[in-house]
């Protein structure tokens, strides 16, 4: 853009509401490290996914009927009878898949590059809280679709809530609006989905502010990059666009050729006297489904799930090393990759029936998650001989 054109004398609106100035100072001219890779575009992709989910969610809300039988039927009706209903429904359902795909990679990016270091603890904790809110929105969204599988999931979640000491059972009845999934449940699930969904936008804004207050994270893990190694954010427009196009392509392929990928097929209506043989949640909840199953009892499952999220948020204190980035920590980087594989194994095992080898796989994968955070992370920091970190951002010629 021509400099003289965009920074001409501010007009009537700009002098009263400086939107262009905020855009310039907070985005276009904001200085960021010169070594950011494609995965650093994922924050923008989260915003894109949230935009798609908000818009398609409002449109689905026009037709959704929050009753026990009406929920599943109204979604099927929307898919079949409304113009482009199939598209809007799958933009929402598969939009959740795209969001969680991006969020999981973003979390592992943070773990791998030590993005929680260098005064970024609070930004990291807010990211974990945002992740938990995403999980809650995803669960309520899956639960509010009604049908036998979703209602079984609500029943199981109520048991997990009831296992909380002291006020658990009161909370579970409050969650269900009764002693069982009933006529009061569906409106609650829908309102929780929508309310927390909008709350996520606020949490994301807080995370953005916390992230901007601290020195910028970068793949070399250099705490405070040299001013000569900083470039305006607009220099990354091409990289952001590339990331967006890859995102949009994968999204379009899923919507067109594999709608509902990794999500349970609904369509069997609820009966109060029978349950589906094996209720399986959407893929992005499977890892936590595995943790909950490894807990044996409802209370144990609640404890393990909450503990895993708390340990994730406690990473800045569990990892006390000087070197932040996995690029210069070969041992740590290897263990982070093992953790990622372990999470995939846990998710796959959690989708299998509780027979044969699978319960053992779930237990081992669960144990590894906790061993990684409680034992491996602090121990590696002490034992590892890290590679020297360059004083300035390494110039890699592509």
């Amino acid at each position, binding site marked *: 853009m021509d400099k003289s054109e965009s920074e001409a004398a501010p007009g009537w609106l700009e002098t009263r509401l400086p939107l262009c100035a905020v855009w310039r100072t907070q985005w276009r001219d904001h200085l960021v490290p010169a070594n950011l890779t494609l995965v650093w575009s994922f924050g923008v992709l989260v915003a894109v996914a949230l935009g798609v989910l908000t*818009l398609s969610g409002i*449109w689905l809300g*026009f037709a959704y009927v929050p009753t026990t039988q009406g929920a599943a039927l109204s979604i099927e009706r929307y898919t079949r*009878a*409304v*113009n*482009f*209903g199939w*598209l*809007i429904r799958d933009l929402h359902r598969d939009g959740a898949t795209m969001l969680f795909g991006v969020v999981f990679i973003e979390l592992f990016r943070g773990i791998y590059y030590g993005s929680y270091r260098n005064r970024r603890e609070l930004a990291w904790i807010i990211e974990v809280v945002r992740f938990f809110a995403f999980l809650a929105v995803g669960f309520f969204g899956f639960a509010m679709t009604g049908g036998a599988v979703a209602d079984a999931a609500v029943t199981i979640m109520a048991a997990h809530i009831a296992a909380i000491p002291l006020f658990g059972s009161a909370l579970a009845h409050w969650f269900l609006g009764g002693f069982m999934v009933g006529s009061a449940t569906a409106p609650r699930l829908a309102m929780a989905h929508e309310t927390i969904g909008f709350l996520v936008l606020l949490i994301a804004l807080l995370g953005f502010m916390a992230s901007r207050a601290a020195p910028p994270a970068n793949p070399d893990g250099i705490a405070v990059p040299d001013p000569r190694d900083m470039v305006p954010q607009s220099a990354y427009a091409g990289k952001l666009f590339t990331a967006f196009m890859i995102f949009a392509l994968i999204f379009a392929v899923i919507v067109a050729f594999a709608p509902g990928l990794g999500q349970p097929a609904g369509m069997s209506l609820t009966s109060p006297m029978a349950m589906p043989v094996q209720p399986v949640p959407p893929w992005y909840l499977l890892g936590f489904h595995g943790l909950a199953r490894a807990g044996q009892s409802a209370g144990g499952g609640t404890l393990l799930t909450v503990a895993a999220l708390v340990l994730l948020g406690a990473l800045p204190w569990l990892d006390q090393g000087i070197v932040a980035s996995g690029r210069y920590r070969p041992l740590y980087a290897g263990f982070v990759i093992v953790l990622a594989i372990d999470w995939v194994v846990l998710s796959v095992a959690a989708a299998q029936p509780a027979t044969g080898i699978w319960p053992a796989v779930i237990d081992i994968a669960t144990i590894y998650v906790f061993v990684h955070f409680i034992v491996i992370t602090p121990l590696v920091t002490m034992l590892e001989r890290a590679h020297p970190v360059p004083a300035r951002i390494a110039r890699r010629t592509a």
Partner: protein
Amino acid sequence: MAENGATSGAHEGEERRDFLKILFGATAAVGAGAIVWSFGAALEPGEAARDQSVFDVDLAPIEPNSGISLRWRGKPVFIRHLTAEQVSAVEATPMKDLLDPVPVKQRVRPGHHQYAVVIGICPHRGCIPVGNKASDPRGPYDGWLCPCHGAAFDAVGRVRRGPARQNLAIPPYRFVSDTLIRLG
């Protein structure tokens, strides 16, 4: 960029960039248009609602000097079978006596002057007039009478007495045979 080094190359590169900008803008506009169109279309009545909005009505059971009321797109539609005297009475009304002057031939279909098809909503405040059955009060003009504010209509639905200022609306319909109409 390397190919921008020569003077002619720079000029060519600029043109190429303009072309790329137009291409990108056009592609983005098509994409945005597709989104806006599909999201807009999703708010329109779906196929099921459209299917229910067109149907046939058999007029044979309607006795002369009586009418029926049915629901079409959620609105009441009145179909009145006029007697020969009623047809000649509305045709004899001078235009200057009408509040919303329209000749009878614009209120009925040619060759089927004995059937009046109107939307049963008073143009004044939206009440539903009475007068389909011979026993109903029909007002001073032998048509329909609005129970809310007293507007009176003649047998083909033209307003003869206020507060309404317009005639009863006519739904889209056509005669399939002598005693069968297709509404919608």
